[in-house]
């Protein structure tokens, strides 16, 4: 019997980010926790549910998702980034992402693919996160060229990535600079090690 999965082709976790009781396997095999911590931290958020929505300008999906190309924002419990002119990425808890995708009218030239398993997602956070990123990426990370809520495709340590600035609020209420990095899952260990090396001088 053929199962139709036009809307979400690959696995959508059933509950709490996992499929049944099977753990999501990280794309990073070896992690030195000490190296990943410090004033610039490196975390693996690959298990977060991620969907790609492709939609032409004249579709209902494009109107619903909105956003200017190159920008991103939090919408309730999900995060939406318009990473390419006709592509949005939606991240968040599984049920929230599924709900949002289910609400989209995918009529016309629009489609969606679950990219949870194909795109890893790391987060580089800290006051000097931009300086760490400058060691591996040629993007201009200044506030005027890459403000919070901006996103772009770029080479990071020679791997094709999507880079999204998504600052976080620290325990003291202060805003802390933070970048999400997405790329093909298979580069996980390599990219993680490259980022650990890049941030090493900042602690």
């Amino acid at each position, binding site marked *: *019997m*053929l*199962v*139709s*999965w*036009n809307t*979400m*082709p*690959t*696995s959508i976790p059933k509950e709490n980010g996992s*499929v*049944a009781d*099977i*753990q*999501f*396997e990280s*794309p990073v*095999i070896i992690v030195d926790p000490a190296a990943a911590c410090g004033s610039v931290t490196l975390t693996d958020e*690959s*298990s977060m549910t991620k969907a790609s929505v*492709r939609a*032409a300008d004249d579709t209902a999906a494009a109107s619903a998702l909105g956003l*200017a*190309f*190159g*920008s991103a924002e939090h919408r309730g419990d999900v995060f939406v980034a318009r990473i390419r002119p006709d592509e949005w990425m939606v991240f968040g808890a599984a049920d929230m992402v599924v709900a949002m995708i289910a609400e989209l009218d995918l009529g016309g*030239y629009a*489609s969606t*693919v*679950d*990219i*949870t*398993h*194909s*795109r890893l997602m790391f987060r580089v956070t800290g006051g000097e996160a931009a300086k760490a990123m*400058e*060691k*591996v990426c*040629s*993007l*201009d*990370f200044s*506030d*005027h*060229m*890459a*403000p919070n809520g*901006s996103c*772009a495709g770029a080479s990071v*340590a*020679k*791997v094709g990535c999507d880079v999204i600035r998504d600052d976080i609020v620290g325990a003291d209420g202060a805003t802390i600079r933070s970048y999400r990095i997405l790329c*093909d*899952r*298979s*580069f996980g*260990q390599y*990219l993680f090690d490259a980022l650990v*090396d890049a941030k090493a*001088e900042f602690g």
Partner: protein
Amino acid sequence: MIMSNRLPESSSEVVDRSKPIRFDWNGKKMKGFEGDTIASAILANGDHILSRSLKYHRPRGVLTHDFWDPNLMVQVGDEPNVRAGHRRLEAGMKISAQNVWPSLKFDAKAANGIAGRFLTAGFYYKTFMKPARLWPVYEKVLARFAPGGEVDLNTPHGYHDKRYAHPDVVVAGAGPAGLAAAIAAAQCGASVLLVEHEYEVGGHLLWGTDDDRAAAATLLAQAAAAGVEILTNSTVTGRYEDNWLGIAQRSHPIAVERLIKARAKVLVVAAGLIERPYVFQGNDLPGVMTSGAVSRLINMYGVKPGKCAVVLAANESGDQAVEDLKRADVEVARVVDARGSTTVNCAKGSRTRIKSVEVSDGSSIDCDLLVTAVGWTAPTSLLNMSGDRPVYDAAAARFFPNSPPDNVLATGGITGDGSRDELIAHGRATGELAAGRANAARHRIQAATASAAAVAGDEPEYPSDNRAPLTRADHPELHRSSTHGLVDYSEDISSKDLFGAAAEGFDSVELLKRFTTATMGPSQGKLETVNTVAILAEARAETIEQVGTTVWRPPYAPISLGALGGRVFEPVRVSSIHPWHEANGYTPILAGQWVRPEHYGDPHAEVRNTRTNVGITDVTPLGKLDLQGPDVPKLLSQLYTNKWMKLPVGGVRYGIMCAEDGVVLDDGVTARLGEDHYLMTTTSSGAGGVWNWVENWLQTEHPEWQVHVTPLTTGLTSINIAGPNSRKLLSRLVDCIDLGPGAFEYMQVRTGTIAEVDNCIVWRIGFTGELSYEIHVPSGHGLHVWNALLEQGEDLGVAPFGLEAQRIMRLEKGHFIVGQDTDGLSKAPTTGMISLLKLDKDDWAGKTEVAWALEDDYPVIVAVQPTDPKIVPEEACQILRDGTREIVGRITSSRHSPTLERSVCLAQVSREFAVAGTTLTVLLANGERINARVMEHHAHFDPEGERLRG
């Protein structure tokens, strides 16, 4: 360890006398202070010879005492070619002279000097040309005379870093003008990166008066307060298109060197001036120095450069040297004022030091120090790299900028002369102009960049250049005296050599440079270029303007290979099952960027087990593209040679993909998962290329087609389950999929749950020729499913197999591999799959070329079996027409088959040899010729396909 030449402490020095440093110079224990250069410390200890010259091995001492000093290249530990006039002394340094034997003091290679008259420019070119067969001998001899230090091949590779930067303004040079420019630009709101070649900012203020040094300190404080990022001991090595700058930072706290790639909106060139040596007989004797060298040694390092000096002064720098020498208690025997008509004719001395100077008025003065202050070279390199062609001003006796592009500005001594305050004022005006232009550029870039913050208002007006220029002080043209001397100290090239080369016809400046190698040494022409041009002009009886000059190209200063290499980024990819491979004794093989298991110890055993029981293999690198949209069939029909409009949902079809020239680009199977939903697979190595190819057709050839392509190669962990027990094994793990032979036939696809993982895809296809299933599992659960297969299949004899076993089995089955059995000239007919070439289809990539190829002769892939079953011809062995050396084909794949216990091969041969039963002659790598027979089918094993369809 008495520092016999150390002067009493003064407020102007940069050395810290409370921090003594011990070091070793050619085996002698010496003492210096923190802040000393290597050269200043050695001079302070009484030694004044620091090197031997390249060709004649003449003793050399301090000439300019800075980064450019060609006489101060030393070996420090295992690091060769260290610039002792620049590099700071460090505790425990083991410093030695380079390229001397047996010692610096008694260098046997100085015998070259005796034959000097025969070692003129072009000597190598003329002498070692013939006979050509002797070149290996020449090479060995010449290698012994090669200059430079010694590289220890066991030296550990240091940490070399890389960084990108996007400052509004980069200022190259932190003298008074550069500092002022940086401060002004930052105060106008620009982000500024200030790059200084030396260890301290301030430029010539550092060896000037107390007021000068105080001004430098004030400027430094202002720069820091304005938020200027200051890099000392760093060099802007090159300027490229649109202000893409290379910056070598030698002062990084954790890296040996860091290469900064900066995209500046405006570059300010404030490189200052470099003092030019004077050409006269004896100008390379130890004890002949520029005025700047003398002032730096005395004022910054507290070192007495000699006891009795003659000063040839044509400018204020010479006057300052006179004052500095007197204050250092050096007798000034004579000041030869070159602003008049007198000059120095020649210097005479012993083998180790100058002893007297002959002046043009006929007098001869005894001395151990000759100080020259005869003019300046404007280091316009960065301007040259920007497209500017500086022009020579005879009245000022130096080159000046001409018309650099708008986003490159020059300031300071490179543009003119002035007092400290005038230089600072010009710098400030330049900084304000740079900030204004950068602001306009930033507005434009920001408005044009989708991800940038929104910009308000219209683009600011691009400021015009209203700066009041610095004046140009008159300066006598002093390049060469009445005698011949060295022009290029690095290469031992004299003015006589240049005259000789010009007389031989090498009288254009570009030819002269290459023939004599003048200006091509480590100083990169900073000291030599203007004198070289002036002497050529003299030889041609023309002016410098008429002769022209060479063009300075990157790098501004030599840069280490380590810095250029930077941090090594070599991405590697692994599948989600990789931890299991590592833990279970796999032998890795690098396939493109992928690290894959080649085998787990015995690939033949892996083949036998798969043929007998069941094997599983990790094929995740297989390219996978998710295709969605109503026009997917049109796309597939365009890409593949066969027909795709009627592929049913649940069906799988194989296809060959051609480039426009009909050459096989890739192959693979594509499944129809839903009405408008397909999954395409490509070869592992072709995954990226095919994605590009697909997007090319969609974005440029047929933008009207509605197809969305998403690469899922790594999102789906792919496992091939092959062997007689494969169905039984898979059935233990799947839900919702009927694996029965009638329900799930060969070349069909299903989706369902495997080992409790939803949304898995199962294809019934096989590369190995066995009953097999290819499953694609969401990668976050790939390892879980792999482990489940091993656990559930234990009683079925399941075992993993690697890439090698897979290659053997596919060869037994006669499946070709694109790129292995085809090449860059193999058009689709070569595959032998003529039935897949649908010329009755409207259009497809490569159709016309394939149609032409079918009418022509083309090589064909055939299965080949050597007559002697034990012989496995090496891949790429030639196939010859019998009895001749005419090549009619080659072996493309070959292995020993553990299933058939004989060798199996695929080959490409001319069509006339592609007939079954033809006997081929194969030329082995050892020269032996063997016979091999062309088989009836590609498949050596199960040609009817009973096993895979079972």
